[in-house]
C-alpha cells in the first residue's frame, strides 16, 4: 500500500528550524509527530535533509525513544502506568477496565486510527496512583468505575499533594498561581538572584560549598564542588552550559514534577543563579516526555521570565550577565536521567551514556564544560542561598544540613511530596503521612526508587540522613519511599522492577543489556511460582555482574533492590515446595 504524505504542514516547522543542526532533532520530531500523529518515512527524510542528519541516525533515534513512532499511530495516545506504586494501588483493575472499554490491548491502535493504547513503566505520578495520561491530560486515583469519565475527558486532573514542616522550597505551592510571575515575586521570588548579584560568583560557590548541599539526583555529589569545577574549566561563558536534569523517571519519584508544575519560576531562578555562579550563558532543561504538564508550564514561565528581563542579555541590568534557557522534551527513556545520556538526548542522539571520564564539568554538553544538576538540587540550593546558609545549617543534622524532599507512595494514607529536615526517621515520616491504611501492618519499604533498596520493619527508626543511610547500606537516592503493607506480594513487586529495568536498559553495554533481560525472566518465573533451585544463585551472579561491570549507573543499580530483597527474605526467591 502506498501512502502519500502531504508535507505542506511540515514546511513552516522546517523553516523555523532552518539553519539548526542535529541538536534540534528531538524538538523537530515532536513537532512533526504532533502534526502527523506519527513519523512517516517522507517526514523523516525531510527532517534529515533540513538538519543534515543521516537517515540511519534519525531511524536509530526514533527507534530508541518509546514515544516516537515510525508506524501508524493515533494522535491520541492513552498511557496507563504499570509502575510498582500504581500496581499497589490497583492499576491492574483499571487496565482491565480500560482494555475492555477500548477494545484495545497494550500497543494497539483502534481500527480508524483514533486511539492508541499503551502501558508505560512509570508516569511519575505515584502519589496519584493508579494514574494515566490521555494525550497530555493527566489523571490520578482512577478506578474501574471512573475509566468511562477518564476516556470521555471529563475526569479532573490531580492536584499537588505537598506536606512538611518547615516548608521552605515548597512554600509557594498551593499559595500562588504557578504561572504568575507577580505572585512569584510577591512570595520571595528572585530575592536569591538579586542577592547573588551583589556578590562575586566565587563567593557564591564558597557559600554553596559551606552549605554542603549534595546532589539530590542520587549520586550525592557536592553541588559547590561541581560548580567550582565548571567555573575553573577553560572556556568563555558562551562555551559553558547549565543543564537541568528534569528527566525524573525513577519509579516512586515525583518531587521534581511537583516543583516544575507548581512553582516553575523557582527552577528558572535557580538555574539562572547557577549560571551566574559558574559563568555560563547557555541553559538547557530536559523534561521527561511523560511530563507534558511540567513542560508546558515551564515553557510558559520561561517566556514570562524572558519578557521581564530575568532571562536574556544583561539580566537585571547586570552588564555582561547573559543567560537563556532552551527546553527539550524527552520521549520515553529513563536512561536520559543519566547525565551524559541527557547530553546525548539534547544533542539529538540515542540516549547512550558516555564513558567517564571526561566528566561534565570539563566536557559535557557539546563536549563543553557543563554544570548538570537535578531539579531539586538546584531549587534547594536557591532556597538555602536565599534564606542564608547559617540559617540553613540550623536545620537537619551536622553532616546533612537543611531539608530534603521525600516522595511517599504505595500503601500509605497520605501519599505526596514531603519537605522535612534531614534526620526525621522513616517511622516518623510514615506516621506523618497517616501510616499504612486500613490498620494493616507494614511489610517493607523500598527506599530510593527502583534503583534503591528494600528495608524491613526493623529499620524504620533509621534517621533519613546521608550518614545514617551510608552506615545502613541504604542509598537515599531520589528520596522515594514506597510502602508495602503485609498483603503486598513482594515477588510481584520484584518482577515489576525487573520489567522496568529490562524496558529501560539502553542496550549499550553487554552486562546490563543481557542482565536486565535475564533478571526479568527469572523474577517473572519466581512470581509465577515456578522458581528453579538454581535461581537464587543465578540472580546473585547476574546482579553482581551488572553492579560491578556495567557502564553506567542504570546497570550498576538495576539489581540493587533485588539483591537487597534476597538478603532480607531469601525465601522469596527459593522454590516454593
Amino acid at each position, binding site marked *: 500500500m502506498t501512502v502519500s504524505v502531504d508535507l505542506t504542514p511540515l514546511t513552516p516547522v522546517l523553516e523555523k528550524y532552518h539553519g539548526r543542526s542535529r541538536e534540534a532533532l528531538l524538538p523537530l520530531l515532536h513537532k512533526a509527530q504532533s502534526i502527523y500523529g506519527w513519523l512517516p518515512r517522507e517526514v523523516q527524510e525531510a527532517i534529515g535533509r533540513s538538519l543534515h542528519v543521516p537517515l540511519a541516525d534519525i531511524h536509530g533515534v526514533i527507534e530508541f525513544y518509546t514515544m516516537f513512532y515510525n508506524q501508524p499511530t493515533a494522535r491520541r495516545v492513552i498511557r496507563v502506568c504499570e509502575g510498582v506504586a500504581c500496581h499497589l494501588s490497583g492499576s491492574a483493575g483499571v487496565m482491565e477496565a480500560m482494555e475492555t472499554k477500548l477494545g484495545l490491548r497494550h500497543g494497539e491502535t483502534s481500527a480508524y486510527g483514533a486511539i492508541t493504547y499503551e502501558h508505560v513503566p512509570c508516569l511519575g505520578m505515584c502519589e496519584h496512583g493508579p494514574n494515566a495520561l490521555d494525550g497530555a491530560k493527566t489523571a490520578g486515583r482512577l478506578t474501574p468505575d471512573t475509566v468511562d469519565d477518564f476516556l470521555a475527558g471529563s475526569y479532573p486532573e490531580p492536584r499537588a499533594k505537598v506536606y512538611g514542616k518547615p516548608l521552605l522550597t515548597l512554600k509557594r505551592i498551593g499559595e500562588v498561581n504557578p504561572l504568575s510571575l507577580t505572585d512569584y515575586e510577591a512570595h520571595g521570588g528572585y530575592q536569591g538572584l538579586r542577592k547573588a548579584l551583589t556578590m562575586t560568583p566565587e563567593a557564591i560557590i564558597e557559600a554553596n560549598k559551606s552549605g554542603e548541599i549534595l546532589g539530590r539526583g542520587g549520586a550525592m555529589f557536592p553541588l559547590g564542588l561541581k560548580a567550582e569545577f565548571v567555573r575553573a574549566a577553560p572556556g568563555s561563558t558562551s562555551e559553558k552550559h547549565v543543564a537541568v536534569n528534569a528527566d525524573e523517571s525513577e519509579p516512586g519519584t515525583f518531587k521534581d514534577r511537583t516543583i516544575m508544575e507548581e512553582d516553575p519560576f523557582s527552577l528558572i531562578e535557580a538555574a539562572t543563579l547557577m549560571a551566574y555562579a559558574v559563568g555560563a550563558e547557555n541553559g538547557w532543561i530536559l523534561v521527561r516526555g511523560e511530563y507534558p504538564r511540567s513542560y508546558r508550564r515551564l515553557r510558559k514561565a520561561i517566556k514570562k521570565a524572558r519578557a521581564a528581563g530575568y532571562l536574556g542579555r544583561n539580566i537585571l541590568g547586570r552588564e555582561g550577565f547573559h543567560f537563556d534557557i532552551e527546553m527539550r522534551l524527552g520521549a520515553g527513556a529513563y536512561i536520559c536521567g543519566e547525565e551524559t545520556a541527557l547530553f546525548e538526548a539534547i544533542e539529538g542522539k540515542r540516549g547512550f551514556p558516555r564513558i567517564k571520564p571526561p566528566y561534565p564539568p570539563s566536557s559535557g554538553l557539546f563536549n563543553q564544560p557543563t554544570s548538570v544538576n537535578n531539579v531539586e538540587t538546584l531549587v534547594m540550593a536557591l532556597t538555602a542561598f536565599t534564606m542564608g546558609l547559617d540559617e540553613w545549617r540550623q536545620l537537619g543534622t551536622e553532616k546533612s544540613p537543611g531539608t530534603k524532599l521525600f516522595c511517599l507512595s504505595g500503601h500509605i494514607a497520605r501519599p505526596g511530596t514531603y519537605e522535612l529536615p534531614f534526620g526525621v526517621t522513616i517511622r516518623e515520616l510514615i506516621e506523618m503521612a497517616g501510616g499504612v491504611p486500613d490498620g494493616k501492618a507494614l511489610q517493607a519499604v523500598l527506599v530510593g526508587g527502583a534503583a534503591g533498596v528494600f528495608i524491613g520493619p526493623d529499620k524504620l527508626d533509621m534517621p533519613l540522613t546521608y550518614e545514617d543511610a551510608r552506615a545502613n547500606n541504604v542509598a537515599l537516592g531520589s528520596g522515594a519511599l514506597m510502602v508495602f503493607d503485609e498483603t503486598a506480594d513482594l515477588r510481584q513487586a520484584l518482577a515489576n522492577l525487573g520489567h522496568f529495568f529490562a524496558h*529501560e536498559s*539502553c542496550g549499550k553495554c*553487554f552486562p546490563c543489556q543481557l542482565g536486565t533481560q535475564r533478571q526479568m525472566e527469572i523474577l517473572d518465573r519466581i512470581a509465577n511460582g515456578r522458581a528453579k533451585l538454581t535461581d537464587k544463585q*543465578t540472580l546473585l551472579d547476574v546482579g553482581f*555482574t551488572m553492579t560491578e561491570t556495567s557502564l553506567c549507573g542504570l546497570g550498576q543499580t538495576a539489581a540493587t533492590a533485588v539483591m537487597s530483597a534476597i538478603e532480607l527474605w531469601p525465601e522469596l526467591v527459593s522454590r516454593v515446595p
Partner: protein
Amino acid sequence: MTKPITLTIDGQKVTVPAGTTIYDAAKAAGIEIPVICYHPHLSANGLCRLCSVDVGGRVQAAACVTAAAEGVAVKTQSDDVRRGRRTILEMLASTVNLVEAPEILAYMEEYGADTSRFDGGEKRTASVYDDNPFYLRDYNQCINCWRCVQVCAEDAQYAFALSFDGRGFHTQIGTFMGDGMTDTTCVFCGQCVGVCPTGALKPKRQAMLEQGVSPDEIFQQTRRKRKKKRG
C-alpha cells in the same frame, strides 16, 4: 611531556606513557586481558565489559577505556573479575548464535562458562538479510559490538548506512526503516564485513561456497557487470 605512569598489574610493575589504557599497559607487560568488542583500529566504547578488571574502586573498570593511573594495583584474574566475565559469557551464549565466533567460544572454555545456564531465556532472533550482491547479514549471530556501525560512520567510511533498531536487549543493527542495503547510503566498501567478529556479516561468495555452490555458479551470481567507460 607528562610523566610516565607506574602501576602494578597482577603484581607486576609496569611503566607506561601517561594516557595509556590499562588494556595496553597489560599488553606491554605480556598480560592478555580478554576483549570482544574492542578493535585496535576503532574507537573503544567499552561495550562488552569482558575486559573489566579490579582497580580497587567502587566497581570494576573496563580496561579498554580506563587510563592507567599512578600506583594503582590492577587485578586481571581475581575471583570477582572471573565471576563477572563468566556471567557475561553465559548470558551471551544464551542470546546469540556464536558458532562462528571461535575467540568467544575459547573464552567460554577459559572462564568455565556454563553455556546452558540460561536455557529457556529469550534469544535474539532475526531474519537473514540477503539484499545485495556482496555480503549477507545474519543478525542471529550479532553480538552488538558496534564495529560495523562505527566503520560505516566516523571511524572510517562516513557512509552512515547503519544504525540501530530497538533498545536494550532488543537492540539490533538496522538501516533506515529497514531498507535493503542497495537502497541505503552503503557504498559496499566491505569494511563492516572485515571487522565483524562473529560471522554475522559475511561475504556472499564465502557464504555460497560454504553452502556448496560451485565457484562458477557463484561467479555468475555475484560478478559485477563491466561498465563501459564514458566516452
